[in-house]
């Protein structure tokens, strides 16, 4: 598990049914590309987050495949429809097998 990985997510607290809301996600991760060389001239091995999956109440919103050319601390912004109150579930998948998860609820009127 990479050190100091902290997921952060921003969504509105409330919305009207069927509204389109904007979701912003950020996770602290240095996204070592595998293309850099260290002081000894050796390539620093790749260590990135390679996938982000976002679901709302079990339905998929977006599935992102990340390559080494996503900047450090990967940031994503996208839209979602919220048909009812519920929970967004975010999962980031690390090259080393770790999965970083977080959830955010929204109340829909």
């Amino acid at each position, binding site marked *: 598990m990479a050190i100091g990985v902290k997921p952060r997510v921003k969504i509105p607290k409330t919305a009207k049914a069927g509204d389109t809301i904007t979701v912003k996600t950020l996770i602290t991760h240095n996204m070592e590309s595998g293309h850099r060389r260290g002081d000894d001239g050796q390539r620093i091995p790749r260590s990135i987050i390679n996938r982000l999956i976002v679901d709302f109440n079990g339905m998929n919103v977006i599935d*992102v495949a990340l390559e080494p050319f996503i900047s450090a601390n990967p940031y994503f912004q996208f839209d979602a429809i919220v048909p009812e109150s519920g929970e967004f579930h975010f999962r980031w998948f690390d090259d080393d097998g770790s999965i970083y998860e977080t959830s955010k609820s929204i109340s829909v009127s």
Partner: protein
Amino acid sequence: MRDLTRRQVMAGGGAGLAMLAGMPSFAAGIDELISSVTKGMAPGAGLVSLVTPEVAENGNSVSISVAAPGAKSISIFADRNPAPKVAAFTFGPLNPTQSASTRIRLASSQNVIALAEMSDGSWQLASSEVKVTIGGCGG
């Protein structure tokens, strides 16, 4: 087979150039990569919007936004990075706009390409040239 005259060769070359004029030219291998993704179908243009800065001071973090209403997925490529793939977005049923923003690394000035697979199976492409002051791949 009859030998080609110089005039015929010139005419043929001119036609080839005219065909290419509508498409931006990408670094070697990118056209092949796109056609392997689309399984040989030529992508259309006009339905994908790709927003990038014209000049990026720091190639380590270049903000981009893509949107392709009605797309199933959008792949992002950068034609002069050490490897061209940057990201691929697949949109679920709760995604109304098929749009996304993120930050990418660019090694040098180059084209950023968005290739979208539309819901009817056709392909759409948009590209944008970004000038990079300081490269962001630590080459």
